[in-house]
């Protein structure tokens, strides 16, 4: 983002990317594609439908599948940067899907207007749920983990109330187009996701919002003393997280035009948190990377597709996913890196890894 380009512009793009924490995510992404290529040399092939100009192929499928993960991952990035966490994103997806399906099946006209109204209503309710999180965290002072755990359970319940516990379907071609349609050959969901990510990036990096979010995440007391008002920023961050989860909910229900209240968005918070961590944003808060989270989302979508493609039994899927992610997190860990660096430079220079700033010994002297 803007910050990246401002720093050390003399270095080439390659050297800069290599020093990013998400470099291993890129490596893993390429590795997965290579594995798939090994099984099917035509895996990366993209075909163009001569009649419609639509692109199709595995890569396009991955892009399509990555869109909802990208949405919740970007929202989660901002929340985590403020030292928070949002466990409610999956439930908000279900609420958003439930609201839009229920609205369209009741209206039943199948018009464009109805599709837009359904989406607007779904996003408004998602924003409201985000605001509830934000107020509980910033004004009431509850822990983000507990707060969003409550909204996670309450949200799932709300989705069931809205649809009276039924899996609700609706038919509306305009709404379906969001998930299945294409723009210039690319899936609509991916295009929308790209635009939304760009808007969020501009919002946080071209204003002072990103600086303030990072300040609060790194040192909340110092940020307050410098005049930053944390309440408004925290609410805003959780609202953004809610809206993005709402968009993800629309994405994932529009493809089948059905909301499965017990399944839509299930365990999505895990995917989002993983994407953020893989992207190099620390769960301790502070510095964040939207680019990293987008790459993390792409990696998770690719992993999901690879598991299916390699015909790994569905019962083993979570274990396989966990293994890949553990490896990436290990590669990102400072300690593991220091260990590698030490081994490479030989035993003669046993320089200890850079001392963690959490325990400067000098400070304790004056205590």
């Amino acid at each position, binding site marked *: 983002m803007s910050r990246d380009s401002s720093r050390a512009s003399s270095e080439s793009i390659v050297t800069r990317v290599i020093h990013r924490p998400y470099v291993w995510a890129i490596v893993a992404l390429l590795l997965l594609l290579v594995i798939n290529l090994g099984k099917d040399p035509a895996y990366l092939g993209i075909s163009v439908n001569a009649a419609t100009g639509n692109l199709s192929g595995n890569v396009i499928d991955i892009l399509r599948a990555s869109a909802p993960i990208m949405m919740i991952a970007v929202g989660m990035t901002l929340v985590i940067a403020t030292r928070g966490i949002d466990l409610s994103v999956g439930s908000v997806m279900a609420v958003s899907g439930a609201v839009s399906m229920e609205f369209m099946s009741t209206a039943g006209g199948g018009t464009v207007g109805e599709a837009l109204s359904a989406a607007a209503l779904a996003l408004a309710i998602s924003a409201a749920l985000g605001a509830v999180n934000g107020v509980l965290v910033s004004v009431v002072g509850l822990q983000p983990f507990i707060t969003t755990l409550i909204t996670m359970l309450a949200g799932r319940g709300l989705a069931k109330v809205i649809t009276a516990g039924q899996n609700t379907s609706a038919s509306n071609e305009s709404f379906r187009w969001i998930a299945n349609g294409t723009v210039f050959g690319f899936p609509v969901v991916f295009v929308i996701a790209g635009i939304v990510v760009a808007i969020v990036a501009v919002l946080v990096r071209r204003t002072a919002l990103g600086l303030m979010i990072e*300040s609060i995440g790194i040192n909340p007391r110092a940020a307050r003393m410098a005049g930053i008002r944390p309440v408004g920023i925290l609410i805003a961050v959780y609202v953004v997280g809610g809206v993005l989860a709402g968009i993800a909910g629309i994405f994932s229900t529009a493809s089948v035009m059905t909301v499965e209240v017990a399944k839509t968005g299930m365990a999505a918070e895990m995917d989002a948190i993983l994407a953020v961590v893989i992207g190099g944003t620390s769960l301790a808060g502070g510095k964040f990377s939207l680019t990293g989270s987008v790459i993390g989302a792409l990696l998770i979508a690719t992993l999901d597709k690879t598991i299916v493609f390699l015909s790994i039994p569905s019962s083993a899927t979570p274990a396989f996913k966990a293994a890949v992610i553990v490896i990436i997190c290990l590669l990102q860990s400072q300690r593991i890196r220091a260990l590698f660096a030490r081994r490479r430079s030989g035993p003669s220079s046993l320089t200890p890894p850079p001392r963690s700033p959490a325990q400067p010994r000098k400070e304790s002297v004056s205590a």
Partner: protein
Amino acid sequence: MAITEPIVEMEAISIEFPGVKALQNVNFRLFPGEVHTLMGENGAGKSTLIKALTGVYKIDSGTISVLGAPRAFSGTADAQSAGISTVYQEVNLCDNLSVGENVMLGHEIRGRFGINWKKTNEAAHDALVGLGLGDIDPRRPLSSISLALQQLVAISRAMVSRSRVLILDEPTSSLDANEVEGLFGVIRRLRDQGVAILFVSHFLDQVYAISDRLTVLRNGEYVGEYMTPELSRSDLISKMIGRDFSTLAALGSNRGRAVHATGKPFYSAKNLGRKGFIDPVDIDVHAGEVVGLAGLLGSGRTELGRLIYGADRPDTGEVRISDAITEVHSPIAGLSRKIAFSTENRRDEGIIGDLTVRENLVLAVQARRGWARPLSKREQGDLCEKYLVELNVRPADPERLIKNLSGGNQQKVLLGRWLATRPELIVLDEPTRGIDIGAKAEIQETIAALAGEGMSVVFISSELEEVVSLSERIVVMKDHRKIGEIVNGPDVTAETIVDLIATEGNVA
């Protein structure tokens, strides 16, 4: 007290941390049946000495003997098994357990079916009775009793492990006068039972009320050991702060320049206070005036500075800025009324470590503008260029992470952060503490120059000489209240302030 054999004897203790000599040749003796107070300013090495004794820090040289035999403890638990218990300022008990469970933790009485809670609670009750705390029910949750009682519970806990040495590190800092009296009752009772007590406190009156013997440290060095009744308060204070004029930089002294304290003040507060924090204070600051806040640590000088800025919300008082009544109840309120506050707690409340120098410098200006109106690259660059050069920050690299700068340079960047907001009143809390002499002199010069340009300055420092040489008027604080105000002049010296603090103490 005719006991001649010390229970703990530390001789020529030295500890060095990277770049700092924390303790140099410090001696310390602790006798049974005596309260021995460790005195010294913040950073003098009191806590380090305690940690050396309990084995938290390894000593680089010197010897520690307990009951005549040389010992080296591996940590608090090891020290405790040798009968040396420590009760810290922040009570480290388990809030969610009962009083009895806390007292007996690790010493529960076991029966055939695991812990016998009835007997354990009885033993806890006995331990509490031993300290005259028989009316606390051991089954009550710890969180339901006051902080002062929790402190006493922590001491009971130490006594259950049959300690012969009890270390109390600032036990009174959050207690009120009655609670302190209760604690002292317990301490005296233990002393009479023959326990050796090491006491650390910043409150002079308390030190004189409770201790039999004093050891004074200064800058990690041993100053001396004294019997409390034989050392006057003013002598004690001068031993604590030392007579080290060499560190005081040559300054354009503000003495005799007290021309600003006329007419309407820029900032004026009447009865500014906050319950349990600081008693109501009147303070005026005129444009171009440096008002010093003097007093020992814990006297309430920092608290007053925080109330002026709005870092803590005042609950009494009337504030006028440029003669208009106003309220300052949050940092952003202070900032928008052109007040700035540079904290003494640089690490926790000042720098945002993982951000760059540039980002740290522009933060307050940006906060006042709001998030939607970001400073452009150019505006940020201009601010950095101006203040990094003006304040001589080294290295003058705006893209370096601030945590990688030295303390003095971090302090300069923070000063830059506040000056960039173009304040009319700046409160500087210990701006020169813990930084090297060169940076110190530069910051002192900057303060004098700012006042010369018409800025109002409230200057807080533990170094009385520094306060005297920079301030036009000095507000003297003690025990969380204002005890006097001195107009600076040729006759005023650090002793004037010390005398005021010492004599006022005798009255109270």
